[in-house]
């Protein structure tokens, strides 16, 4: 099963095992990782599960949809090239070892 590492804004790392098909947001929520709010629960509606995907993994995740892209313009912390909504990234073996950085704020 693929692993994913969350790096908090102050540099703390949490590595968790995901199920294939589970969203990165869901992995964070179910394990109580702080720094992801996910108010809408995974509908790409609230822009509060924003993460910065570590550069080597950016092109391994399926690209953002039009709706996600529009919501990324509305995130509370700065949008950068690796910005994604973590509810829209599905874990898979191809993403094993994924590292995502959490922004300073989600709201």
């Amino acid at each position, binding site marked *: 099963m693929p692993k994913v590492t969350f790096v908090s804004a102050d540099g703390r790392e949490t590595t968790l095992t995901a199920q294939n098909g589970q969203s990165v947001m869901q992995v964070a929520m179910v*394990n109580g990782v702080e720094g992801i709010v996910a108010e809408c629960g995974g509908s790409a509606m609230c822009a509060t599960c924003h993460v910065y995907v570590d550069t080597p993994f950016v092109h391994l995740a399926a690209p953002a949809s039009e709706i996600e892209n529009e919501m990324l313009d509305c995130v509370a912390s700065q949008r950068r090239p690796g910005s994604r909504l973590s509810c829209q990234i599905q874990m898979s073996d191809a993403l094993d070892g994924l590292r995502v950085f959490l922004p300073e704020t989600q709201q």
Partner: protein
Amino acid sequence: MTQPGVVIIGGGQAGLQVALSLRQLGFDKPIQIVSDEPVLPYQRPPLSKTYLADGNFDQLVLRGQAALDAQQVDVLLATRAEAIDRKARSVSLSDGRTLPYEHLVLATGTRPRRLPLAGSDLQNVHELRTLAQAERLRTAMSAAASIAIVGGGFIGLEVAAFARSAGKKVTVIEAGSRILERSVSAAVSAHLLQLHRRDGIEIRYRIGAGRILGTADGRVTGLLLADDAVVDADLVLLAAGAVPNDDLARGAGLQTGNGILVDTALRTLDPCIWAVGDCVDFPAPRGRLRLESVQNAVEQAKCVARNIVGGNEAFGIVPWFWSDQGRYKLQIAGLTAGADDVLVRKTEDSDRLAAICFRDGTFTGVETVNAPADHMAARTLLARTTGLTRKDFEDANLDLKSLVGSAT
């Protein structure tokens, strides 16, 4: 005996959030959540959307057992709270136990409104609130060819859109003068009506269901409408809104109206008892409100947690809401119900629409379909309370985001 702490009745998103927020604030006494469901707290909104497609409960769980244990949050599953003894400050449970409390939080949610509809006891008549009901509906739906839905509200339309995308024949019956009548402006109702009909969902409004038809052995065959028309269906979903679970509060002598009555701090008339989420009738600037939304549940829970640890905070939010109806994302920012003036922005070549709502000349919110950036901009504008009027929005070329930039 352990010292009493906080007992939370109701294992939904509001109840869980009270517990998590209390721990975040450093609250170190026992926290017990009493849930009448057999599973850990989960997200309810996907039950009428993605869960019907994938049946994957793991995607819905809000916190796993390990995370709850780490936070020392005790969840009593499949357990009902039977009565509150306010004098003794304790709650008696269906398993015979009595839980003492220092603070009690009622997060009892809602239940589907029961229609007095003959035939409701037939097989394959469904309602949707809990995981168990969603699982029953999901299983039945995979075998059904035609589905009749009573109620053109959020749940009814979300399930209709899913069922249609799965190739079912779908009919929605709405007794009101339009779909989503209590929730959105006439412009958005009309827009969604057109989109859903384009996708092949049959929608009838201004018509009530008379009774559910079935065979002698109890199988559903359809709906008889008030005008004697018959809708053939082998599955019926009753989705005519929800009513607050306030019986426990009323039984304890607490005040109820459209739900459990609280003051601005979300406290009942008993200083040790609070209420959060869908079941709460709370004071707001334009009169009392009861909101059924995740945001309201989560923010009320956070507010009560802060007040329990010594705060005296009045609850206040810019409400927002969403409803995924198949390919259509409906979002509401602000309190748009009761708008007396609506400015509609629509492009002919797409499904996008924004309805900018006013009441007494003041901007009250925006309803959007497939326009998430407009929705987010509206939330920012509402949070600033700049007293925007219709004139500020009348330039048709102006997008809402540019208004965010100029209204600082």
